[in-house]
């Protein structure tokens, strides 16, 4: 569904992506894993057209995304930090996002998370009055809103309370089963182990490997993913 071909990006002298090639197929959860500043976020931003790569290309259903915005209709995105217009009430924000994305959907909006996170109760509050966790919930709800084929979640559970994390994880699983491609970044291995099918391991702008978690475990003979990764990388 998404093909990265020799993707390169540098910021000044810093080489953030050094020719990454990856293929993501639907109906799976892929975790982008790697140390800090390894290029995960840059990769996501390239996918979303927020960062324009210097070299290589990205194909979305065989179409190059360079200079295109329409493919984004099929992507939902939850940023690492969500900030919204300070003086807007939450209800108005959702209304606005629906309005801006009107052409993205033919059927109903997916408002499941709105209900399960109990966000509707807070519709009257202005965005500046919300806690970081609540804003994360808003971001998550917005990412799933348009029932997109691809959902990209940047550090989705950071800042969420355990209950909300659980709700989100269940939602991710549900969407995967519905045939969607879900890309997440995360530092928490237990979480990755719990929700992801495969791992793309990225170090210094290169994809070290892209494997199914089961394969990693059986390859290394370790039960826990963290250990398995450690094992794999220290080889």
């Amino acid at each position, binding site marked *: 569904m998404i093909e990265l071909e020799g993707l390169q*990006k540098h*910021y000044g002298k810093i080489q953030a992506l050094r020719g990454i090639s990856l293929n993501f197929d639907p109906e799976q959860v892929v975790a982008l894993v790697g140390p800090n500043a390894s290029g995960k976020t840059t990769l996501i*931003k390239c996918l*979303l*057209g*927020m*960062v*324009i790569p210097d070299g290589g290309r990205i194909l979305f259903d065989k179409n190059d995304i360079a200079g295109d*915005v*329409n*493919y*984004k*209709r099929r*992507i939902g*995105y939850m*940023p690492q*930090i*969500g*900030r*919204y*217009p*300070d*003086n*807007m009430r939450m209800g*108005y924000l959702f209304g*606005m*996002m629906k*309005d*801006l*994305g009107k*052409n*993205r959907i033919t059927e109903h909006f997916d408002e499941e998370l709105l209900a399960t996170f109990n966000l509707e109760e807070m519709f009257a509050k*202005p965005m500046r009055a919300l806690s970081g966790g609540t804003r994360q919930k808003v971001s998550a709800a*917005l990412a799933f809103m348009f029932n997109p084929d691809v959902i990209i979640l940047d550090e989705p559970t950071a800042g969420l309370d355990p209950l909300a994390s659980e709700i989100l994880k269940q939602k991710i699983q549900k969407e995967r089963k519905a045939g969607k491609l879900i890309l997440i970044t995360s530092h928490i291995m237990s979480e990755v182990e719990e929700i992801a099918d495969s791992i793309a391991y990225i170090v210094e702008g290169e994809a070290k490997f892209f494997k199914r978690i089961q394969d990693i475990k059986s390859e290394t003979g370790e039960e826990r993913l963290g250990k398995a990764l450690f094992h794999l990388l220290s080889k």
Partner: protein
Amino acid sequence: MNKIIKYVLHDIFRNRILLAYVVLLSLSSFGLFMMNEDVSKGLSSLLTVLLIVVPLVSILFTTIYFFNSYEFIELLVAQPLKRSNILLGVYAGVGLSLLTAFWIGIGLPVIIFDGTATGWYFILSGSLLTMVFVSLAFLASVITRDKTRGIGIAMMLWFYFTLIFDGILLMVMFAFSDYPLEKLTIFLSCLNPVDLARIMVLLKMDISALMGYTGAVFNQFFGSSLGIVLSMTVMLIWIILPISIALRIFKRKNL
């Protein structure tokens, strides 16, 4: 784009700083008009507000608003929306809000106290000046990622146009005082929208008579219809050029 303008307006009209700006402008204009029995005197005192406060608030408010909305702009970019539409939408939204604030805070009192051509000219100059500094603020905002630096650049631009430029101009005048400088000065004034706005208003106010012989040259130029068209055009260029550059940068910018 219209939707973005609408939502930016919805947000900014609830902004407390903007509200404070309106109050500040209203207080100073009503205060100055009531303190001076003479309307034109009040207007010329208000000119200082127009030339210093309006550019400062316009450029600072816009820059801060831009950086506070940075993550939201990112989110909008991740939506199926064109970058140019996003930036121009936010630009138009911020510009319209600041213009509205200016119209309520200064425009209204000016019309109430001095509904003459001078008053309208005053409002026109202020409106153009507001938009020039909103444009400059967008330029300052897109060339850096860092909020503090962005605000620093905005402040420097304001400082440059309200003070440093005139200081340099004065030094140039001193250095070449043996030559007739009127034409050069007219040309140089086009390089500073604040000077241009000031001259446009001054020549409509009766204070222009003070300018004597040298002023007569300015009067002849800026008072003629060609001069008015030309100075308007230059002001419009000052609005369009920075925002166009900002747009070019923003289109390729890594968010």
